[in-house]
């Protein structure tokens, strides 16, 4: 089995889980308090930008990091979530939280469907299939007038949303909760039988199957979970920007970052995508308001090249080596 697997015994799992959830909630509360003390909305919007990538990268990691199936269609799943939220609001008037639940359901089904359709595909062929899925979805959305089609859809948010200080704070807290839940799910998968089965698939799928790992079932679970969580990352997007069009929803930067962040942080571990997303997301946000040029993807590209060449196991790999 790969070097990234962490053996967890039943005796140590309980306290570790408690420490994880306690730590995550503590960090979340601290972030909200600090941003309230700073007292301007920019922190919330910048924080939202980073946290959405924590969700997206952690979701990608379940299939790409644990099972070794590289998904190039992250933007497609994310957009499916975003447009589900738009369609739900238009059809029923239901707001953000029901939109997130519906997005998880629809994108999860999409993930399950993708899993079924691509069961026989491995390696680069699976990746191309996911890329094609994003193209098919974008064409569908462009031609679906109900959600705005190529014109895009507007979502007019309320100016005040008590008890939150502002709309920005509300969006930040929603994304913070989603990020904590997603990282928690990714961690739980990693330390469960599912995670160990996925790691076996990554190392040698035929050998795993030969020793009795239910590869089909595990891959379907992974594609469903990955799709659902990517949809969750996308559902708040139209509420965040107030407007959504296909170009924005299917943006290349989501697909690139969803892959680059786990690889830089350390794919195959729950902490890797979090570190990658915080590092790259913060760098990109800082570059946008300081150097103020198209350095975002340039930074991502260079960091990816450097990490692939010098640290193929990402930042988490450094720590592993030292231990």
């Amino acid at each position, binding site marked *: 089995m790969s070097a990234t697997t962490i053996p967890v015994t039943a005796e140590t799992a309980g306290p570790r889980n408690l420490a994880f959830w306690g730590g995550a909630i503590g960090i979340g509360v601290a972030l909200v308090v600090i941003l309230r003390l700073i007292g301007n909305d920019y922190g919330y*919007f910048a924080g*939202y930008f980073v946290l959405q990538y924590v969700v997206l990268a952690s979701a990608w990691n379940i299939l790409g990091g644990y099972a070794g199936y590289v998904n190039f269609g992250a933007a497609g799943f994310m957009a499916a979530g975003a447009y589900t939220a738009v369609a739900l609001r238009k059809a029923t008037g239901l707001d953000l939280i029901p939109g997130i639940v519906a997005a998880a359901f629809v994108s999860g089904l999409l993930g399950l469907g993708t899993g079924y359709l691509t069961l026989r595909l491995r390696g680069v062929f699976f990746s191309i299939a996911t890329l094609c899925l994003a193209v098919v979805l974008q064409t569908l959305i462009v031609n679906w007038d109900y959600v705005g089609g190529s014109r*895009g859809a507007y979502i007019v948010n309320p100016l005040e949303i008590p008890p939150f200080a502002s709309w920005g704070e509300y969006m930040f807290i929603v994304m913070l909760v989603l990020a904590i839940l997603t990282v928690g799910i990714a961690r739980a998968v990693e330390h469960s039988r599912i995670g160990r089965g996925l790691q076996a698939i990554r190392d040698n799928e035929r050998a795993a199957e030969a020793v009795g790992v239910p590869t089909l079932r595990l891959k379907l679970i992974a594609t469903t979970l990955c799709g659902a969580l990517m949809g969750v990352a996308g559902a708040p997007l139209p509420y*965040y*920007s*107030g407007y959504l069009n296909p170009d924005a929803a299917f943006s290349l*930067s989501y697909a690139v970052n969803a892959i680059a962040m786990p690889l830089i942080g350390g794919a195959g571990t729950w902490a890797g995508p979090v570190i990658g997303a915080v590092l790259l997301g913060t760098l990109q946000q800082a570059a946008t308001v300081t150097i*103020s040029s198209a350095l975002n993807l340039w930074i991502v590209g260079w960091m990816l090249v450097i990490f692939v060449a010098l640290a193929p196991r990402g930042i988490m790999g450094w720590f592993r080596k030292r231990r």
Partner: protein
Amino acid sequence: MTRITRRDLGRLVLASGAFVSPAAMGQGANPIRIGYAMSLSGGLAANGRSSLLAHKIWQEDVNARGGILGRPVELVFYDDQTNPGTVPALYTKLIDVDKVDIVTSPYATVMIAPSMPVIMQRRMCYVSLFGAGVNEAFKYDRYFSMNVAGDDIKGTYGKGFLEVAFSLPTPPRTLSILAVDNEFAQKAAESVRHLGRQRGLRIVYDRSYPPTTVDFAPTVRAIAATRPDVVFFASYPPDSNGLLRAISELKVTAPILGGGMIGPQIAAVQAQMGPILNNLVNWDVYSPEPTMNFPGVAAFQEKYRARAVAEQVDPLGNYLQPFAYAQMQVVEQSLARVGKIDQAALATDMHANEFKTVVGDIRFSALGEWAEERNLFVQFQGIRDGDLEKYKKPGTKVILYPNNLKSGTLRTPYGAPA
């Protein structure tokens, strides 16, 4: 050990005062800070960068006149990378962290719309650049649009094109429509469809195509097979080039061909297309014809063209650049009238008064669009090569509509030699 006395400390303070940075002096002068995001990279960068140059020229002009309300003007801008997802954060940074006094918009509808919730929450007065019907959804009472389209795009956009078509000696009977799948093009096509039916035209071809289309030969062949009298395209720069090249290669002719093609307004496209543009009747916003020689526009274009090549932007400045300058003139004139930075008072002033700008006199409607639409329909005439010098003079992009700005007569058909 040498001890620092109070006198030494005083000397140090004086000495440090001699080295105050120019930036700090600027702060001391208490500039009026105007903040915005602009696409300086990505798909909209060509127009975003040239708009920024126009804004800088306005800033230099206004500062040379002593600033606004006796205060110099400072521009604070960020690159939105043509990514709508960056826009809300950039505007919160501008307003909450940079504490700008005034905000103006990025370029184009897709970038303006994501800024609206942030602007509305902070009740800022907001002058936008080339947004199409953004405020139809938000209905924000402090939104003002620098765009010729007016309130009712469906009812007015295609009016000029059809007026030109019906000025033919033999009135047209058939119309073909082809539009790219995006916001502006679909609205334009909807307008021509609606107005064409009203005027009794039979629509013989009506299709949309995805923005990723690269081969237009089959589409153009299909349109040519229907032999329409009037051919209307609503396309964006890469598609406009593809369509015009396919039309040229297939030698398609029609009494009136053109419509709402975005691309032929831009210098690079004019240089590439050369004589293919001859007799094309197309939507536009500005042409250097005597009828549009508004006060200040020639001076602005002279300054713009002197710097455009070095800044690697559109060398002519015949499209949105004068409108970017005018966008800031609206802010300037309103501030001068109100006499202080008061968002509510600025909005009231903008609703109530007329503005004298380099693109003419403007008044805003209740929705913040131009009270009177001014969609131009121009015809490219007498073009034999891709040399851009002729586009600086009258007679190349002749205005056919509206009548009060008309500067030439229609030549027909499209496809005839120059």
